[in-house]
């Protein structure tokens, strides 16, 4: 297992270098000069702008800028934000917990709702329950998240006043007021999890139906095992394998997908923060954000592979 992990970590290095090159090039190919942008409208003279460009190394040729960035990166120096004048990585990391908590709750909702829905639909194949889950599976994909978010805000926050319309915590409340946090999280987590619930219910339905038709399930029935044992010990464990496979990518997808949700619900997460940095052409923040997200993504894939091996004994880890 240790060799496996080490090898995966080693393979991650070229992946991350690739990410760094692509990010660097795309960020700089986008039109506009960051210094001119953030000093636009101020009394900054041409000299001020040139001095700032020099200070941030933007007057150097692009390959030199890239190498300089990489050199600092290996020393864990992500540079300072043009806008905030603070360490870019430290800034970005302040937003990570906010997005993670939303993503984890959404993931939990996906599993807690999506998996049983799929299994029930498979067991009740052909009934109205199955029909409902299948329709839900399509609708969950079709409904745009921003639209649903706005509708939920208008209904539950503006009309009924049951839930807050925005933010992560009521102003004045303690950071550890979990009930208040839960109220704020409910609507965005529901919207964020919707696509996943639809995905999982469809996936589980298909997988469960397939597993239920396998020989070993018939054998288990023939052995006279209780229906519940057949279902949970034999069938479900196998049906869950693709779910675990999808997990690694889904966490990354949730973090990425949170951008729209964070925007609609004014949730202070990495999506909104990185989006704002991209608009402002704050290179150090964008680059730090993409690199840190890249590392998180690589780690989540490694964890997925490990989980995959644990769940499916047929797969060995070498």
């Amino acid at each position: 297992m240790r060799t496996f992990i080490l090898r995966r970590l080693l393979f991650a290095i070229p992946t991350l270098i690739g990410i760094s090159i692509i990010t660097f090039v795309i960020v700089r190919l986008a039109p506009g000069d960051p210094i001119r942008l953030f000093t636009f409208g101020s009394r900054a003279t041409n000299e001020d702008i040139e001095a700032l460009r020099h200070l941030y190394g933007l007057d150097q040729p692009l390959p030199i800028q890239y190498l300089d960035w990489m050199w600092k990166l290996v020393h864990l120096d992500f540079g300072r934000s043009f806008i905030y004048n603070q360490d870019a990585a430290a800034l970005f990391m302040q937003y990570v917990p906010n997005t993670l908590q939303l993503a984890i709750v959404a993931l939990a909702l996906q599993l807690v709702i999506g998996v049983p829905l799929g299994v029930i639909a498979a067991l009740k194949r052909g009934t109205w329950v199955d029909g409902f889950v299948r329709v839900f599976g399509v609708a969950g994909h079709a409904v745009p998240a921003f639209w649903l978010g706005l509708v939920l805000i208008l209904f539950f926050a503006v009309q009924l006043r049951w839930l807050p319309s925005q933010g992560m915590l009521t102003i004045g409340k303690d950071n550890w007021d979990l009930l208040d946090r839960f109220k704020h999280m409910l609507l965005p987590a529901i919207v964020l999890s919707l696509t996943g619930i639809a995905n999982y219910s469809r996936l589980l339905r298909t997988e469960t139906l397939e597993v239920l038709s396998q020989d070993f399930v018939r054998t288990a029935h023939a052995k006279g095992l209780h229906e519940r044992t057949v279902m949970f010990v034999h069938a479900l464990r196998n049906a869950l394998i693709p779910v675990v496979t999808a997990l690694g990518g889904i966490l990354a997808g949730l973090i990425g997908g949170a951008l729209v949700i964070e925007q609609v619900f004014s949730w202070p997460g990495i999506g909104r923060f990185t989006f704002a940095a991209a608009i402002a052409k704050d290179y150090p923040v964008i680059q730090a954000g993409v690199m840190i997200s890249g590392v998180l993504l690589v780690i989540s894939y490694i964890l997925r592979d490990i989980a995959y091996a644990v769940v499916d004994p047929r797969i060995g880890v070498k």
Partner: protein
Amino acid sequence: MSHPRTGRALISALAATMLVATACTGGTPTSSGAPTSSAAASATEAPQQGGRVIEATISDIATMQPVLVNDTASGRATGLIYDTLIQQDAKTGEVKPRLATYTTSSDGLTYTFEINAKANWSDGKPIIAQDWLSAVTAVGKSAKTVRKSTFQDIVGFNEFCAPAGAQCKATASTISGITIDTANPKKFSVKMTKVSCPAILDLGGATASPMPTHVFGKYLTATSKAEDFDNAVENTAPTVFSGPFTFKEWRKGDQVIFGKNASYWQGAPNVDEYVYKVVANTTAITNGLKTGEITFGSIIAKDLADMQTVDSVKITKYQSLGYTFIGWNTSSPTATGLADKRVRQALAYGIDMDAVIKAVVFGEATKQVAHHVPVQWAYPSVALEAYKFDKAKAQSLLKDAGWVAGSDGILAKDGKKFNLTISTNSGNTERETLAQVAADQYKALGINAVSKPEAFQGLVTKLTTGDQTLEATIIGWSLGGDPDPYQIWHSSQIPDPSKNVTGFGFTYFKDAAMDKAIEQGRNPTDGNCSTAARKANYETFNKILNENQPYNFGYSNNVLAVSNKSLQNFEPGSFSTLYNVHQWWIKK
């Protein structure tokens, strides 16, 4: 000083200029909702103590150091914790004392300030002249400020500031033009190299808010490096305050929390807390105002009708200190017609701006025909051409200029068709609609006009660096406290890539008489900075613009400030919202 409006907050709050006396027209706030009862309550009831004001802002702040501020949100935040020497009347722009009174020498070259005897820092130490000098010193030393040019006319500043370059010499260890009274540590004088009418708002404005020397002094010694000050922790977590509020916590991307400064020299604020709540967009502001999660914020015209149905809020309208316009590239190699004054006048007559205002901003704006807006004292008293919609006149002017419709109905001259691309920043719905409506109306004149949204980031660089691919651009100016239009309209501000000159003169229009009027309004040779003298120059300036139409000056929006009815004494104006924030109170 002016700055462009971007729809987000990448704009400067550097404004600061001068007004000696006042002669203001228009701009009186009007309210709807239930302002009468609210105002009456404020006037007659004793303020209640406690509560919290929550202001919605779309952008997070970037810093709490006035010297480094480069965006609107940070400017407002620093305004809560650091008082300025002077302030402008919220409605008229008249300059008034705040932390200090001031006098000007007869030759107009020396300003003498005396800080209020009662004015103390939140830790009890007196606010003294050295604290003001520390702020100017910080500007001189910082590598990240873009304010050095603000103080370039102070005697000895350029010799002091660093690093050495075209402006700064970095040869002196002190600023020779600033003298602190040896007998009175709260009194100081500032000598200027030339008479500069906007200077008073620079010297007494936000950039030069006194800075607690007992906190920042260690970053500003003779041996300190620029990064010592630029990266000081107190820039993001200040500890000592001169304003009505103190800094408590900055939850990044979510909220900035300020507590009341119980020892504020003008009297402790009535409310316990002031919170900047960062929200995603204007829809979130509207929703938050409806639910009561937000105490006040500005909404967009589209949401006004909806907001007027909400009983719990009061709506205050006032004219913004800025305008949205279409800038014509008068030296465009592709839209050559724009070089002709008659064509530009035709483009003014040929668009029904009143109808546009109704369609684009639901009538919540005033048509502009020159640079200054009606709330500024510099707004001309003389009659200007109103450019009322007159299609026939527009067509006649185009014909006089040699543009004749071809068989396809498109105007052409010397075999070249009149194509016109109107660019604007994408994502700004108001401007995108304006570009589309303008293009449609110009098509009716026979001009092959199209609208083209593009990313603001790219547009900014193109505009300021002399990119000739732009033919017409819709953008907006937020004007500063002083009416000096030098940075936008003086010919020195026209970009010239061959000489590496950048600037906001992206219409490439210049006029010697206009230059002279601008210079005399800024640095009068006779030293006369009176409102009357400056206004005469600005009338000349506005008349030239009005006649030559390098912009279609578009319109000046109304600001729609919405507050919860529980908020009392909230009386914002075009020049300031927070001027009386310590007197605001929440009615329970």
